[in-house]
């Protein structure tokens, strides 16, 4: 399985094993969505930890508990490194909040350029 989708995201696993998670335009992410998405990433990685590119450019809002879930132990089991791709001013604010307010368990970085994000992800050691 290399492609999948949930209410808020579509997923694709590329040849290098990077999972691309693209948030749908105008999506409002709640805790339930966060859980669903993390579970999906886990499944796509065949229960291994994946490098994940999260394209946040379409996001409209995200709740606090969703954010805490993404920074928590469950997400850590599914992800090895996370690159957050931002574009809109809203996604920038959300991503910065995420990055700076929740202590990160895994390497996480912000990018506005998709290629640079992939390069960084691939560099991250297992």
């Amino acid at each position, binding site marked *: 399985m290399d492609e999948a989708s949930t209410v808020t995201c579509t997923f694709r696993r590329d040849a290098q094993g990077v999972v691309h998670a693209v948030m749908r335009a105008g999506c409002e992410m709640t805790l339930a969505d966060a859980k669903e998405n993390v579970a999906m990433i886990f499944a796509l990685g065949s229960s291994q930890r994946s490098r994940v590119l999260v394209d946040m450019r379409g996001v409209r*809002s995200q709740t*606090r508990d969703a954010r805490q879930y993404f920074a928590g132990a469950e997400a850590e089991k599914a992800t090895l490194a996370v690159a957050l791709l931002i574009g*809109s001013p*809203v996604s*920038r*604010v959300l991503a910065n909040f995420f990055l700076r307010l929740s202590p990160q368990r895994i390497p996480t970085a912000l990018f506005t350029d998709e290629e640079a994000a992939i390069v960084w992800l691939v560099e991250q050691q297992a």
Partner: protein
Amino acid sequence: MSDDRLDAILEVLMSYARQDFSPRLAVSERRDEVDAIATGINLLAEELDGEVASRRELESAYDRLKTTQAQLGVAEKFAAIGQLANGVAHELNNPAAWVLLGVDAARRRLAHVRGLLGSDGPGAARVAAELAVIDDALTDAHAGMERMRAVINDLRTLSRADAEVPVELDLDEVVRSACQLARPAYLSVARLVLDLGSVPPIIGDRGRLGQLVTNLVINAAYAVADSSNEHEIAVTTRADGDDVVLAVEDSGPGIPEELLERVFEPYFTTKPSEVGTGLGLALVRKIAESHGGTARISRGTRRGARVEVRIPRARCETPAPPPASPQSVVRVGARKNRVLIVDDEPMLLRALASAIGDSHDVVTALGGQAGIELLAKDRAFDLVLCDLQMPGVDGVAIYESLASSAPALLPRFVVMSGGAVTSRAAQFLDKVRPCMLDKPIDIDQVLAVAADPRAHT
């Protein structure tokens, strides 16, 4: 930025300033800079909301902790007061005994003097009048001491050390003592109706059971306290199959159905924290269960609460020792007996000797060692009155020494005991079941025993 969006932002900021972090800003499909600011504000508000909630949680946990701590303090204080009361009762016992005996002796001498005085001679009438006044004063003093003796007895009953060896006991007696002690709590608010059913004996701990009854009576008194109606607290005992059943019922407001089980939870209270600890009924249940019984609460026939405690009756009924009930003994043609009194308290020894000495030959031994030495040389006694607890050689030791050297004396051995029993002494009482006189000593009782030792021992 349009005025509308700015106003919306201002509006929520004002409400945050009033510590209300619930409103959120709308984020439009455009997701432009204003939406980004709105998002930032929303995120900030969520953070603050979360912080406030966890602080409130912390505060309420802290409050609960503080009350629990206060309640524990109260429980500890109760335990300490119990110990203190026991110690005080013990200390008061001996002086109370000799005051009582002294007053008794004085009254008897006074009667004697009045007999000698006759009715003629100058001033005889005046002396007789003076003596009558003295007699009245002594009678009052005697009554006062009797009351003190009752209080001391109740205190002893209720505050005995925790590790008391379970003994066969009469629940009715415990109820009477406990109600007497709880009197100040209900006196001004309710009438106490005692309906005691001469129940069969149970095995238990007098002090703990007394505490159980006191707790129930005090709760009942509190329940009826703030209304002006006439109230009743009924305490009943009865036998029911293999159980002895105690019920305490009041005519207060009762307990709402949904709280009936909760009231037994430790720390559950509806009273202000200076009054309620929420431990009373929890203790009642614990004490009942430690006696193999149960405690239940329900609505009583007087509309108020009814707490029912069931305790199994003593299984194999060992024949109770013949109670020393001298009141029922008719003293006719009392013969002169030879009595040995052993006690380590010189004042009490003297008072007892003087009280009994009028009608019997009395020999005294100050302390257990002296008692043993004396008994080695002289055993011609009709009665040995021996203090149970003495430093060094105690009553138990004297009994044991007699058991091997002069068993014939054992049936004439009477112990005097004044509370705070050591476990050694308690075991002795339980095993040997000697004839026993409670301190403070009641002079009539001593005289009755001395007059006819065989009827009592």
